[in-house]
């Protein structure tokens, strides 16, 4: 039955003993290895692994701080916050191929962008979504938030091109149910976050949208900048306008929460972290009522044409209202937007609505420049307030460009002194003045323009302010050189920096005398120059920010507007000028008298000047600028204000700019809008 071999006791042979010993040795060595490894893991590098384990379970979540509100001078909110559920996808969780494809797409699209118009060729096709699991993820997600996977893909690619590392916002304002759905199934939606964020709310939509500016995640370049020192990556900061200028106060500081999570990302508890510090509220000098009126007036009298306007208090420089058209609904920018739609809404063809024309657009100012010429002439002793010139309607100047120059519609005003010249806006008077000032050493016309604030930044608390330009001999030379250099470099017949290469001529000065030619100024500069005139030589620094407050509106810090600049002005000359300006707005024959209709000029004197600047487009730029105040029995002027309005291609000054300014003044003094008529007065 049983094999005798097996039955026999095998003595512990030498061989077996050796093998058992070898087996034992092997076991010993293996256990030794494991022991050594355990010792290494637990005793030698235990702290390190303990730290990793703690890291593992704690997810630090940003607790966003609400940005501070922006309120008007009466505390009425202009820009607020709202909470919204936002769905984002983390780019680093996307497959590398998708990110590479997006980068390649961005490169090609960039190349296409640089090709000249009309020869751009077909738009760059979006890269195909090759990764099946990502497509499945997009489809799954799309079903939850109601987007097609193609839209998600497009959005992801476009955003990857813009900011390759930041979370990509796929949709804002998803419902709480959708947010919870996503949060509870974190594992099925890798890289997808549904979180509560603060978005900007704009109760007045497009009103002064350029002034408030935009916000956005801090860019890589900004992280290195001094003004954003200590701001963590991923923070929303102001990118433009007041949001940028006063970002320091508005921003606040994001808090953080330490959330204990399990391996599936499900929260298991919260550890206290840092509380968010809400941003400060910034109070502006803007008056919402006046701002609304200005916006509507510009819309109405500008009839859809681009334009800019600004109203300020000449005493303090406080900006009371500032409008730029076309504008945009800033709410659009707080949601994801496709490249195409962005182009359509904010491109050049849409009138560049992001551009704040009140401070950034530079135009020749037309006749609104004449007070500068007058002051220069008076100071140089070329005229006195009583000097009369016979205005025959047309004049032929000896040297320089152009032959015969005429008043608008060749109107002849006869003998005019400074007052009258201002009232009727006699070009001849100022042509002659400009001519006579040209040979005077020290370029009085240009230096007076500088004194009044032209060709230099006003220093308003907004980014993107244009400097403008006051042409003189040096300036002309510089531009010629630039043009020549440009032609040589690009090998083109003309770069358009100057129309023709020639030296400064008397004609240039004559043109400048009536605000034509190469003069470039912003509506704000024009307003500031009139404020300086009204102040008798005190040039205020315009500013918007008044004070920094806490959320309840309690004062934290007064914003220092900066000191005003002063220059000397001859009182007699100034008085004559002011009289002329007042007559222009109130007396029959005055350029804008018709606009104001039955205005109570006794109570609310207006010192206004129209301007009509010829532009290369052939359509005139309409200007109006006025200083006004309320007379009191004690003789102390109240409610002082300077309003400057311009409308591109708006025709004569009295046609569109003046009635818009009139409405602003009406609102300012009477609280009612009305009694303003679009004039047809002829004035250049």
């Amino acid at each position, binding site marked *: 039955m049983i094999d005798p071999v097996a039955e*026999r006791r095998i003595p512990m042979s030498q061989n077996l*003993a050796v093998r058992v010993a070898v087996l034992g040795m092997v076991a010993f060595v293996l256990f030794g290895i494991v022991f050594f*490894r355990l010792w290494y*893991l*637990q*005793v030698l590098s*235990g702290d390190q692994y303990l730290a990793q384990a703690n890291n593992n379970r704690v997810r630090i979540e940003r607790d966003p701080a609400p940005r501070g509100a922006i309120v008007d001078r009466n505390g009425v909110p202009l820009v607020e916050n709202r909470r919204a559920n936002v769905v984002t996808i983390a780019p680093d969780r996307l497959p590398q191929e998708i990110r590479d494809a997006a980068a390649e797409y961005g490169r090609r699209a960039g190349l296409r962008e640089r090709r000249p118009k009309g020869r751009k060729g077909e738009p760059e096709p979006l890269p195909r979504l090759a990764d099946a699991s990502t497509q499945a993820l997009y489809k799954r997600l799309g079903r939850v938030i109601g987007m097609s996977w193609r839209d998600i893909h497009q959005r992801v690619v476009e955003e990857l091109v813009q900011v390759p590392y930041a979370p990509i916002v796929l949709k804002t304002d998803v419902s709480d149910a959708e947010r919870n759905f996503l949060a509870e199934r974190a594992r099925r939606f890798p890289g997808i976050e549904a979180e509560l964020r603060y978005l900007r709310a704009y109760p007045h939509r497009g009103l002064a949208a350029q002034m408030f500016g935009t916000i956005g995640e801090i860019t890589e370049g900004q992280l290195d900048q001094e003004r954003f020192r200590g701001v963590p990556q991923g923070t929303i900061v102001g990118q433009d306008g007041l949001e940028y200028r006063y970002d320091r106060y508005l921003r606040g500081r994001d808090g953080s929460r330490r959330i204990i999570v399990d391996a599936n990302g499900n929260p298991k508890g919260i550890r206290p972290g840092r509380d968010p510090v809400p941003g400060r509220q910034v109070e502006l000098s803007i008056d919402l009522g006046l701002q609304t009126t200005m916006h509507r007036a510009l819309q109405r009298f500008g009839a859809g044409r681009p334009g800019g306007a600004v109203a300020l208090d000449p005493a303090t420089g406080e900006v009371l209202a500032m409008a730029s058209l076309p504008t945009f609904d800033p709410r659009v920018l707080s949601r994801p937007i496709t490249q195409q739609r962005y182009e359509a809404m904010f491109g050049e063809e849409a009138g560049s609505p992001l551009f704040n024309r009140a401070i950034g657009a530079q135009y020749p100012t037309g006749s609104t420049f004449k007070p500068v010429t007058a002051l220069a002439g008076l100071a140089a002793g070329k005229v006195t307030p009583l000097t009369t010139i016979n205005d025959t309607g047309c004049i032929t100047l000896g040297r320089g460009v152009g032959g015969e120059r005429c008043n608008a519609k060749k109107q002849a005003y006869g003998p005019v002194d400074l007052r009258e010249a201002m009232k009727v806006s006699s070009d001849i008077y100022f042509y002659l003045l400009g001519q006579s000032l040209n040979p005077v050493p020290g370029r009085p016309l240009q230096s007076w323009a500088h004194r009044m604030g032209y060709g230099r930044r006003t220093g308003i608390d907004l980014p993107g302010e244009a400097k403008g330009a006051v042409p003189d001999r040096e300036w002309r030379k510089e531009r010629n050189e630039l043009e020549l250099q440009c032609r040589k470099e690009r090998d083109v017949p003309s770069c358009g920096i100057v129309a023709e290469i020639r030296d400064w001529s008397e004609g240039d000065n004559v043109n400048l005398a009536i605000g034509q030619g190469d003069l470039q100024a912003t509506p704000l500069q024009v307003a500031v120059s009139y404020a300086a005139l009204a102040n008798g030589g005190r040039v205020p620094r315009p500013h918007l920010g008044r004070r920094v407050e806490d959320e309840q509106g309690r004062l934290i810090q007064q914003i220092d507007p900066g000191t005003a600049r002063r220059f000397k002005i001859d009182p007699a000359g100034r008085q004559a000028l002011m009289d002329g300006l007042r007559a222009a707005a109130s007396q029959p024959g005055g350029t804008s008298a018709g606009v104001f209709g039955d205005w109570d000029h006794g109570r609310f004197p207006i010192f206004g000047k129209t301007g009509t600047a010829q532009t290369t487009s052939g359509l005139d730029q309409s200007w109006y600028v006025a200083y006004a105040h309320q007379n009191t029995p004690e003789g102390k002027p109240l409610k002082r204000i300077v309003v400057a309005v311009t409308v591109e291609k708006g025709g004569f000054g009295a046609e569109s700019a003046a009635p818009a300014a009139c409405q602003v003044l009406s609102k300012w003094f009477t609280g009612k809008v009305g009694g303003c008529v679009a004039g047809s007065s002829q004035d250049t």
Partner: protein
Amino acid sequence: MSALGNTITDVQGDRPAAAPARPAGMALPIDVTLWLSVLGISILSLLTIDAATIDDVPGDPDYFVKRQAFFVGMGVVVALVLSRVDYSRLRELRHGLYAVLIGGIVAVFALGSATRGSKRAIQTPLFEIQFSELGKILLALVLASFLVDRARRLKDRDTTARAMLLALVPASIVMAEDLGSGLVFVAIAFSVLFVAGISWRHLTALVALGAASVALVLVAAPAVGVEVLKPYQQDRLTSFLHPSEDPSDAGYQQNQSRIAIGSGQKTGRGDAATQTKLNFLPEHHTDFAFAVVGERWGFAGAALVLSLYALLIWRALRILTVAKNLFGALLVGGIVGMLLCQVFVNVGMNVGIMPITGIPLPLLSYGGSSVLSTFLAIGLLQSVYLQGRGAAALKGRIRT
């Protein structure tokens, strides 16, 4: 040695000539040291599973502990019963056992239900049977029987080849779904052959062959486009070389396991063991149970567990030397190979020096098939011990 050993020596010394009425081995029919380690590991297993699975089954925090306790209880009974059986008689059943082995493995392959992508078990309403666990014991028995049959031709190349063939047939079927168990089969075969005393030349050739086939499967075959391993298997085998952050990845598991063990430091984190509690550690009651021990009780706990295994294997090697016949010695050799392989591969995978192969840690990992099979092995060890003791006592040749 043990107190038991001394007692036996004393008995022998008292009555050197006559055979004792009661064989000395029967006086205490168990190897105390062996049982000490076995029960020690079992108790630690219950504690570990209790700590690890408290949140796993909603409403029944003790679900896994209760089941494991039941398996251990059953296992102890099975082992005690088996220890009273003369293991030598099992050699008569060698053909039947081999048939059961092949049949069972094929049945799992054909009928098995897939868990986590591979068919490893037959599902029954109450539990699932992981046949490869039992198969390990059967293979040890069959191979030992076969080599005893050819005891006079152990050095023949033919013997080595046939024995390997016997082992490789079931091993390769098992490997198709469960690479780890297949490797244990090979380890058992190798161990039995080694103890049987095949020539060193053959052994070297076997090792070389094994290394070559590993290289072929992992490197050469994928290079020429032949897929021998399933992608996930390949992944698991190589992932310990490159840990990853992706939770769906094998490298992630290993990484988390290493973090769990490392974070236990010298004395463990106790109830603050977040790797286990927050589910970062996958399979914490089965394949990665050792990591739970490491996190919860630190180096002290892990070293204790390892010491108990060392004790177990040392006892098994002792039993090998006292086996009354070649069959017993070979059987124990197979069991030692099985235990050593499983302990080293599983713990190695937990501490990140071995690939992930889904081998349970004997007695510590949760699982009925594994626990019962291990107790079967313990029972056989006991049987060999008792028989050897008895035979020696009868012959009055007991030393040590």
